[in-house]
């Protein structure tokens, strides 16, 4: 069977798999350590190839990508410090598995943005879909709009700051890190969380299992004020704090090696 060519120029083989075309689009305008390219007519693979070529092989530290067109899986796996600006919206799995970059998205993002982010900063000017910051381990993820359901599911570190509201089961099975939610939170907030802190400025529709109100400290105020200052968000509203009640799972203070000895 002949290869099929999709609408965006992606070539599929007879089994429907994308042809491993690694030809570089080479469409960037480079000026010193800065580069700009238009992604409108590029496939996901071509966009990521171009971006990686600029960052890893040409040493560009400031890349602007125009017209990303809400395509999926853009900007994933960037593992070094650099500045990336997406002028527009991204689709699913945007900027996942990153470690270090400073990313600004002027539009919105689809599901599972910044999944497994290790470090760096991502600022999204618009809304975010469900599963935003799933399993994030470090860095700051700032959503200036609202975020969908299960934001920060399995969060293991870092910060997810949502200026708007969040959907149901936000912070589900959260293990570490913090979430600052300036708007309302849907039902099941912090359900089955192991640890971590969730601050909510608006109304909470319902707490999940083992998510309980926490005691406010000066460190909480200092942390929130600092993050608001860094991201230019003005004066923070008052927040309620929620933590793990530690009733659902059995906890102790032993290190794994100590536990082996005890058991």
């Amino acid at each position: 069977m002949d290869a099929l060519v999709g609408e965006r120029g992606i070539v599929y083989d007879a089994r429907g798999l994308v042809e491993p075309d690694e030809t570089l689009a080479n469409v960037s305008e480079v000026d010193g350590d800065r580069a700009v390219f238009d992604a409108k007519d590029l496939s996901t693979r071509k966009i990521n190839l171009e971006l990686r070529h600029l960052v890893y092989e040409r040493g560009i530290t400031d890349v602007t990508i125009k017209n990303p067109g809400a395509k999926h899986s853009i900007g994933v796996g960037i593992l070094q410090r650099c500045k990336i600006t997406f002028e527009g919206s991204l689709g699913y799995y945007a900027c996942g598995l990153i470690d270090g970059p400073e990313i600004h998205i002027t539009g919105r993002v689809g599901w599972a943005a910044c999944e497994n982010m290790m470090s760096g900063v991502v600022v999204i000017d618009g809304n975010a879909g469900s599963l935003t910051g799933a399993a994030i381990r470090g860095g700051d993820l700032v959503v200036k709009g609202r975020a969908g359901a299960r934001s920060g599911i399995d969060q293991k570190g870092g910060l997810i700051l949502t200026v708007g509201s969040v959907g149901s089961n936000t912070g589900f099975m959260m293990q570490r890190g913090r979430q600052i939610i300036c708007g309302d939170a849907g039902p099941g907030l912090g359900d089955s969380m192991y640890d971590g802190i969730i601050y909510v400025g608006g109304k909470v529709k319902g707490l999940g299992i083992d998510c309980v109100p926490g005691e406010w400290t000066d460190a909480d105020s200092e942390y929130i004020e600092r993050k608001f200052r860094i991201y230019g968000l003005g004066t923070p509203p008052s927040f309620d704090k929620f933590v793990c009640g530690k009733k659902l799972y059995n906890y102790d203070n032993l290190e794994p090696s100590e536990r082996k000895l005890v058991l």
Partner: protein
Amino acid sequence: MTRMLQSMKHRGPDSTGYALYGPAGTGVLVRYKLADSNSPRDFDYLDRLSRHQAEVQSRMQSLGAKVLSSHAETEYAYRVTLEYTGDLKKLVDYVEDVPEAEVLSIGHSLEIVKDLGDAEQVAEQYELKSFEGTHAIGHVRMATESDVDISGAHPYWAYPFSDVAVVHNGQLTNYFYWRRRLERSGHRFQSECDSEIIAVYLAERMAEGLTLEDSMRQSLEELDGVFTYMCVTADALGVCKDEMAAKPLVLYEGEDMVAMASEEMAIRAIIDHEIDTYDPYESEVLVWTR
């Protein structure tokens, strides 16, 4: 709509379907098929189609329907316009008693077009470029729990109610409960697909007097599982998300257009500039009327 569906071909290359709403006329629009594009072409195939087509039209006329127009869209799919004021259920049941006949839609403005292949193939096959209407829903399908055929393709018409269609992303976990209950109420199903339940369920609620919005809100209590579905009538378009918001939906509300899809790239296929979109939350029911 074709551009939107084609942009999401990666979600399902097996079949593509449209529920299109044109200007309401006085006649009853019926779309039906007598075979599939992948039906075996045995030596009697074309003669059998011809016999069955004659039998369908004869049965329509025997129930008092006057055939105003009849057009073979493909060698196995037909579009007819009837002057008919009788019982739609009786008409459909009688037509579908002809071997291999299946009514895909009935309505004064609804026309369901679905077939195997991607959106561009189906649109070309059924000459949809020239269709003009007010609203539409569509679906690309990757078959999971039922066959790759036209019966298993979305959208679903809500037999035997006119002008109601549904597309659905998700799984109903109380499918058999509702199927048995609706069958006991006299409804029949064209497929084994759980999405068809939603169409008939909603149409039955509306026939009992509920609005589309109230019917959809009731479905949140009575349909179990994970789902985002859209339901369309002649003058309304509604969307409903389950209490977990487990299935995606991206919504754009402009001044002169409402567009939504599982992925934003489908909306961007018809709007080439940056737009403000959002994902509705859990248990949300949204309805727009003309």
